[in-house]
Structure formats: structure tokens, C-alpha cells
């Protein structure tokens, strides 16, 4: 877990995080505080029909000027540009997103051209903006991506069939309203898979070669919260204490990961998702323990710390043995949550593994894995996970 004198980092988490039951109702005050007068809600076609949505719209009161509800999973450049056009017509000066990662990323995307002009694709790049984008208040309805505090928006160019990453400090949402009531309706399977997305952000932020102490602290607490509260929320989806703790876990895991990188698990999960349509949280959930076991000899002391955060009694164990127990604890957690355990269970054919192994090598995340990877090594991990 130690660091040497070469340690050098910048940690950013500028988002104002407001937590509590009913805080989504404070959205109007937050708009005022940001100097907004004309707020538009960004959401999807399902959420727009819910009471949760109506409460936020009502809470915005006179500041509400309209809603853009055409966001789809795996959001796209065309969706963002459509949302930007709507916002321009309405003369919007503040964005309120209600939804999961795709919705929040859409709002981050809209915030860029709405301030700078032009179309979203003009800003394809890294840290290109020179001033803050349009203010954005994020209200997550899932507890997984942590997008409410991260500096990247992943938006697909469906025409060119490629993923664009808009990474910029100025698109980190200004405010995150973490309201447990907003996640109560989340179905058990989505609750579990998004939680494991957050778990994989936490674990990977710790074993990446770019890890930093502040992210470690966030990640360890996120792991502790997930292992302690996921079973409760799976048992009773109306358990507001557990729902709230899961929101906090996802938020701080996102902040941890946004300041480091991720590694092998995300690189493989992106390829599994891209090639065979396996949802990101599910792919991460299946691959995470295998990633730990694969990397175990590179950073056993980190996995020992993770094991402790997972509640494993590691007294008297070597770091390597404790790391194995960390992988076991994650398996136990995902089994109890009813999540699939093998890639073969989620539609990945055995003859597709080599292709995934090759694809993952061109994923940016792979270079930050604690052990160098190549297609053969990737394939070993994939075979274990299949």
C-alpha cells in the first residue's frame, strides 16, 4: 500500500454533493445558487412518466422551462445534439439530469456546445474547454456509474460506430443530489449490477498504476459500504438506509476512479460489452474476481487492504492469501445478489474469447493494469471467467 517519493498527483472533486432523503426537492435552490433562471430537465422516456420526475419538475417551479426525454441507453452524439438544439430554443442556462449514467453523460455532453457553440463532435478530445460549461445538477437514479462526479462523458457516434470520450474538468457536474428516494424503484437485478460497477471502480482505482492515496481512501470506504449494504438493499428494495449508503458508495467510487484510471477488468468488460452486448455492470461483476487473482502477485498488499474492507478477517494471513479471500468475498457477494458468475451464462460464446482478448489490447484501460497485458494473458483471464 506504500508510495514512494515519486508520488505526484492532482485530486479533483469539485462537485457539491448533497445527500439525504428528499434532497431532490431542493433542486430549485441549487439552480438559484448556480445563478440559473431557465432550467431544462434531461431524462429518459421511462423516468419522465414517473412521480420521481414530476416531483423534480414541480420543485423547479418557475425555473422549469422544458424537458428533453429522448435519452437512450448507450447515448449518442445525435441525441446530445438534439438535446442541445432543444436547450438553445428554450434559452436554457442550467441543466438538471435525472437518470443513470447515460442520462448524466448526455447532460454533460449538452453542457459543452450549449456554452461553446457548434456541435458536440467539435469538442472531441481531452481537456479542450477553457471555461466552465453550462451549470449542471445531476440527480442519479442508479447507484453505480458515479457519473455525477466524474470528468468524462462517454457518447457514441452511432454513425461512425465509434465511442467518443469527452473528458474535461469543466463538465464535472456542479451539484449531485444524492436522494435515496430516487433509487427506490430500481429493480433488484439492476441494483446488483450497478453496485458491482461501483465495486469495480473502487477496486480498479486501487490497483491501477496511477493510484493515489485520496482515491484509495474513497475506494476502501466504497468497498466497505457496498459489501455491507448491497445484501440489505437486495432483500428489501425499500430500505432507504441501504439505498442511501449505496448511492454514497457509487459516488465516492466514481470520484476515486475519475482521479486515477481503471485496468484489466474494465478493458475486458468494455470488449465483452462492445462485442456481445453484455451490460457493463454484469461484465465487470463477472471479471472482477478473476482480475484480482490474475494481478495478485503484482500488488498483494493492495488486495489485502481490499479484503479487509470487504470484511474478511485477514489476521495471520499472508497478503497473497488475503487477496485470494478478497476474490472469494466478491464471488460470495455476487452469488447472493443473484448475478451471473460466468461469461458463458451471459451469451459469450467460447469461440468469441480470442476476439475479446485481442480487442481489449486496444482499450486504453489496459495500460494502467498493474501487470503488463497481451492478448495471450487476456485470454487466460477470459478462459477462467468463461
Amino acid at each position, binding site marked *: 500500500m506504500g508510495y514512494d517519493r515519486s508520488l505526484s498527483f*492532482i485530486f479533483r472533486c469539485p462537485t457539491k454533493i448533497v445527500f439525504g432523503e428528499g434532497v431532490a426537492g431542493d433542486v430549485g435552490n441549487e439552480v438559484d445558487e448556480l445563478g440559473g433562471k431557465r432550467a431544462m430537465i434531461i431524462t429518459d422516456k421511462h423516468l419522465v412518466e414517473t412521480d420521481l420526475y414530476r416531483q423534480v419538475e414541480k420543485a423547479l417551479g418557475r425555473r422549469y422551462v422544458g424537458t428533453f426525454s429522448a435519452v437512450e441507453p448507450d447515448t449518442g452524439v445525435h441525441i446530445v445534439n438534439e438535446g442541445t438544439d432543444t436547450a438553445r430554443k428554450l434559452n436554457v442556462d442550467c441543466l438538471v439530469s435525472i437518470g443513470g449514467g447515460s442520462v448524466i453523460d448526455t447532460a454533460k455532453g449538452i453542457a459543452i456546445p450549449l456554452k461553446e457553440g457548434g456541435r458536440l463532435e467539435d469538442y*472531441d*478530445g*481531452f*481537456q*479542450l474547454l477553457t471555461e466552465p460549461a453550462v451549470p449542471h445538477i445531476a440527480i442519479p437514479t442508479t447507484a453505480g456509474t458515479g457519473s455525477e462526479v466524474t470528468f468524462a462523458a462517454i457518447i457514441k457516434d452511432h454513425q461512425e460506430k*465509434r*465511442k*467518443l*470520450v469527452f*473528458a474535461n*474538468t469543466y463538465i464535472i457536474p456542479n451539484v449531485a443530489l444524492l436522494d435515496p428516494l430516487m433509487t427506490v424503484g430500481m429493480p433488484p437485478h439492476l441494483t446488483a449490477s450497478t453496485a458491482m460497477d461501483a465495486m469495480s471502480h473502487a477496486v480498479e482505482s486501487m490497483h491501477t498504476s*496511477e493510484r493515489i492515496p485520496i482515491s484509495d481512501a474513497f475506494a476502501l470506504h466504497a468497498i466497505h459500504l457496498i459489501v455491507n449494504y448491497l445484501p440489505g438493499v437486495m432483500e428489501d428494495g425499500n430500505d432507504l438506509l441501504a439505498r442511501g449508503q449505496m448511492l454514497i458508495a457509487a459516488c465516492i467510487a466514481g470520484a476515486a476512479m475519475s482521479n486515477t*484510471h481503471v485496468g484489466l477488468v474494465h478493458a475486458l468488460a468494455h470488449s465483452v460489452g462492445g462485442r456481445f452486448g453484455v451490460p457493463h455492470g454484469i461484465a465487470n461483476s463477472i471479471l472482477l474476481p478473476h482480475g484480482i487473482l490474475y494481478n495478485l502477485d503484482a500488488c498483494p498488499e493492495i488486495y489485502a487492504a481490499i479484503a479487509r474492507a470487504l470484511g474478511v478477517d485477514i489476521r495471520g494471513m499472508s497478503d497473497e492469501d488475503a487477496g485470494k479471500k478478497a476474490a472469494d468475498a466478491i464471488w460470495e457477494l455476487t452469488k447472493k445478489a443473484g448475478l451471473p458468475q460466468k461469461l458463458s451464462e451471459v451469451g459469450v460464446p467460447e469461440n468469441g474469447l480470442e476476439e475479446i482478448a485481442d480487442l481489449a489490447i*486496444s*482499450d*486504453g*484501460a489496459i*495500460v494502467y493494469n498493474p501487470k503488463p497485458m497481451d492478448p495471450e494473458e487476456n485470454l487466460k483471464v477470459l478462459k477462467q471467467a468463461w
Partner: protein
Amino acid sequence: MAYKFPSEEWIAEFGKAINANEEYKRTAATWEGPVALIFNAEPAIGLDEDFCVWADLWHGECREIKKVTLEEAQKAPYVIRGSYANWKQVVQGRLGPVKGMMQGKLKLKGNLPTIMKYVKASDELVKCAAKVPSEFLDE
């Protein structure tokens, strides 16, 4: 002999260092396309206008490297821009290009996932830059 950083002499040496680097050849074997580097103007140290470099990188080789105008540089599919102090850190090997972008010290225009596929190649480019004996304007 040390070369003033940045200068046309410095970039010529940089180009030679790239073409002498076998590891760069290997890790950038599939890279296709020019990259522009822009050093922001800083009159206080004698950099009166933006200094722009055009590097035509193709399959692990630097086919051409030259000083260009800002207008020309901005036409490159990948443009990396930063202050003199931050570029100096990169050239001295104290700041990795990707970390520099993560921290907002360098700005990239271009497709990030594509760049991320070539992180190892970009590290090799930095090693090449570090090999050029440099005389810094602010020292």
C-alpha cells in the same frame, strides 16, 4: 551541443531520435496520421507567439517534422497543446503525456480512445524528446 527548446534545430533532432527508437517503431507500428504540438506563446521567456510543430507519424516512422503556423497545426487530426512549463516537464520526463492530459496540463483535440491505444508509443516519444540535449528558455 544543446539545442534551444523549442526551435527548428531541436525538432529536427527530435525527429532523428524518433526514427532511431526501435521500441517506438514497434509500439506505433499501426499509427497513421500527423500530430501537431503547440507550445503556447509566453513573451516573458522570449516565446512571442505559439510555436507549432507538425510531426507526420506513420507506421512507427517520423516521415517529416517541421515548424508550421498555428493555422496549419490546427488542421492536424490530433493536436496537443500546453504551456511552456508543462511541455518542459514532459520533455524532461517528469510528466507523462496522458497524465498531463488527465491533470488538465495538456489539451488534446482528437479522438481520445485512439490516443489511449498508443500510450506506450507516446511514452516512447517522450523518451525520444528527453534524449535531445535541450537548452530551456526559462533557465
